[in-house]
């Protein structure tokens, strides 16, 4: 597995998900996008991920609600939406080989990209340092 770590440029949800909010761009500057994934802690707790089925494009995510499942050798775990929005891209490669979720959870192991419905929700998320402290409870 990769080295433990929680990058500073991400926001974290208590259910062990991360969000990377992208610069608003393109034609609709008022609706920023975010890339979502699970944290190093989550993939470590799950163990070897053997299956991830990306949800369909256009799926609506509601903050704090599950939107997908990741399945490890032994268990199935819900992936919870850190932010609300609509899926505009999914990491199709993971359907073939989900190993990047373990190997590179903040890079090649990203899960989906969403157009945010309520960017203000990001204020409820934690920064890396705060999230890391919650892991030593």
């Amino acid at each position, binding site marked *: *597995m*990769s080295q433990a770590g929680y990058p500073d440029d991400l926001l974290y949800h208590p259910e062990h998900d991360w969000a990377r909010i992208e610069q608003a761009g393109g034609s609709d500057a008022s609706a920023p996008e975010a890339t979502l994934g699970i944290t190093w802690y989550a993939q470590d707790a799950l*163990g*070897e991920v*053997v*299956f991830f*089925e990306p949800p369909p494009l256009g799926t609506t995510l509601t903050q704090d609600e599950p939107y997908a*499942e990741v*399945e490890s*050798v*032994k268990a*199935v775990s819900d992936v919870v939406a850190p932010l609300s929005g609509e899926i505009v891209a999914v990491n199709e490669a993971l*359907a073939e080989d989900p*190993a990047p979720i*373990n*190997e590179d959870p903040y890079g090649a192991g990203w899960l989906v990209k969403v157009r945010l419905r309520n960017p203000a929700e990001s204020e409820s998320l934690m920064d890396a340092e705060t999230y890391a402290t919650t892991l030593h409870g």
Partner: protein
Amino acid sequence: MPTTLRRTSLYDRHVDAGAKLVEFAGWEMPVFYEGPPTPVRQEHTAVRTGVGVFDVSHMGEIETSGPQAFELLQRLISNDLSKVPIGGAQYGLLCREDGGVLDDLFTYRLEHDRWLTVTNAANHAQDLAWWREHAGDLDAQVEDRIEDYAMLAVQGPRARELVQAISDAPLPPRMTAATRRLLGAQMLVCGTGYTGEDGVELLLAPADAPALWDELLRRGAAPAGLAARDTLRLEACYHLYGNDLSTERGPIEAGLGWCCVEDTHFIGSEAVRGVRAAGPRERLVAFAIDGPGIARQGNPIVGGGGVTSGTLSPSLGIGVGLAYVPSGRAAVGTRLQIDVRGKMRPAVVREKPLYRKGP
């Protein structure tokens, strides 16, 4: 973890090898060894293509000896032990009077009147009580030997050559057992395993296990944990007690009629005879998911029955498993719909085993 968990004599070796330890039937056991990104798949593949070593010292042993040891075992165990020569091994079931399965076990005939039965860890205490309860007036001794044996399973196409290189005499063939010295330590070498590969199981004094473990690893055996053991046995369609076998299920529906010989009058034989004649209501089948997805234990099957074991087959790259289905839908090729947490996954009944080792 609670401090009451038992540890095998290889506990320190597991920690050194990077084991992720979990509670299993009251023992603290390695589920896999950290290091590679996909450790379970690596361990699985090592056993399919090379050689892996499992610490299965949590399994129990019951020794039955004395002039009427045979009579006792023949009454307890579903298979016909008169067919087992000295040095032989046999798989059989322990059943209740109603045919419900209490355990599945291997029995080795050590001497004419001395037998060793290997139990599942979770059932050992109950099996031992069952043994003693039925020993009654028979002239047979029943001894709990769980403290006296560590057990290593060395499995894979290279397992025999690796173990042979440190053995003082030729290894016993498949389904037989013999006493050998390995690295100077005397042990029972058994030509058995539960992975679908060739290999041996070694029963030895716990104090001798660490040196043997070190030498097996030095010679190239990959340490492998319970997770790989589970995917390997499932591809081979071997039953796991607690999943595919229970007191709620009888041998015939579990597909284990081949190891039941009713004419020996074992406990449960009348019930087994009845079900064999009438046909079981449900049967345990192997299945493969047709498309993406993995079915798991407890997932219901549309039209009746349910999955008792399910995983992603590392060898085949698809979701596979064992499931009880109505007998009319048990034929190879039958299409099933499995309800995987609300999502219908199509599956097909497959021939057993799901994976067969190469030539």
